[in-house]
């Protein structure tokens, strides 16, 4: 029974070839959360990669001593907004996995606050993902995932887990939080992999 509401224009939409199907360009940075914003002090922050044979951890100072990349990339949220040319600083997952030995092919990202999301390991390596701690030249705001978030820009942005605290290697692909609740196990914006 839906009808057009007289005088309601909705959001203005800009089209651009760099936008995946069904996406709209935004200039602000919308905040989406599944819970309260965790307040994580960098003094207590720790990042851990856990494998079948052990684990490797970095505290904030150790993390800052790693090679840091400048990243300029487009980001695409499953709620239909995209931002073009966003700039970040962070540590490449290639750097973090340099000394990690694992036979497993799948990763579960874990966050402070309990959020999880799954990504295959080969989609995190070869310059495709970072743990980012700066956005637009400023330390990452807590509401955008600070002190540090995963940045996997070639997948929908829910895969770029805010407040990330570690990666757990898994022998098979298991769904994370949103992936258990309706969202696509993989999440490629160019294939519009939004839902199951």
């Amino acid at each position, binding site marked *: *029974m*839906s*009808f*057009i*509401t007289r005088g*309601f224009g*909705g*959001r203005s939409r800009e089209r651009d070839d760099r936008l995946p199907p069904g996406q709209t360009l935004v200039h602000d940075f919308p905040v989406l959360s599944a819970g309260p914003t965790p307040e994580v002090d960098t003094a207590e922050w720790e990042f851990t990669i856990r494998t079948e044979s052990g684990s490797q951890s970095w505290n904030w100072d150790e993390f800052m001593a790693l090679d840091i990349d400048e990243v300029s990339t487009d980001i695409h949220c499953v709620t239909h907004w995209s931002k073009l040319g966003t700039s970040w600083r962070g540590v490449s997952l290639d750097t973090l996995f340099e000394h990690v030995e694992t036979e497993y092919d799948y990763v579960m990202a874990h966050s402070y606050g309990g959020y999880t999301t799954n990504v295959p390991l080969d989609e995190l390596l070869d310059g495709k993902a970072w743990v980012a701690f700066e956005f637009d030249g400023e330390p990452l705001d807590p509401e955008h995932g600070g002190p540090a978030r995963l940045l996997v820009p070639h997948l929908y942005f829910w895969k770029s887990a805010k407040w990330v605290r570690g990666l757990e290697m898994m022998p098979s692909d298991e769904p994370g939080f949103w992936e258990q609740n309706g969202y696509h196990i993989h999440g490629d914006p160019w294939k519009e992999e939004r839902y199951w």
Partner: protein
Amino acid sequence: MSDTIDTTAGIRAVPRAGWHVGTVVAVHRETPNATRLELEVDGWPGNAPGQHLDVRLTAPDGYTASRSYSIASSGDSSRVVLAVDKLPDGEVSPFLVDEVRAGDKLELHGPLGAFFVWRPGGDHRPVQLIAGGSGVVPLYAIASARAEAGDETPFRLLYSVRTPDDVYFARELKALAGTSAPLRLDLVYTRRAPDGWPTPPGRITREALEAAVVPAAQHPLVYVCGSTGFVERVADWLVGFGHDARSIRTERYGGM
């Protein structure tokens, strides 16, 4: 399990929700920042005092936006009254406040929510209503329903509002305060008070709240509606005063 939950007051069958088309029959400037809309709603089953509805707007390209609004009216009538506050970055409220005129049709889903409801004719437990800003809308519906039913349950409304110009239903609330079983009305001004007002404007304090509400010893039912920050603060203080958390019902509308 039922022994620990107060399921007696308010939580009863309410009319079945559905999608309806409402025709705007009157638009009235409620405050400098808010509009009162009176709608004639085809097939509306009536609603209980305190319920809300969802308004859905559809753009020519198919984009839709939907928001919840408390209903200021109650009863069997197909007339539905809303009072909408314009949010600065809002998508739906600026349209409802600035754009909508008599004769427009709006898509409505409701009536909704059987929890934040009070009905006359119950056990006469005293009722304390606490409103922050536009949070007064469902509480006004509740207070009006009591007066219309001639119910004499002791009622008190504490209403925190920015300035005297921002008071919703100013004339109607004054009338409710002057009936034979009056609604006791306490106003708190947060930005500007009328000339000669006994207290300077400011956010309500814990002490002022305690002095202005039905004491916990009288076991009132308490309804709190306002921004999330306001409701959190008030509800925490009430529990601190000894009010049973189960007797406090809240409706947060977001914001800070």
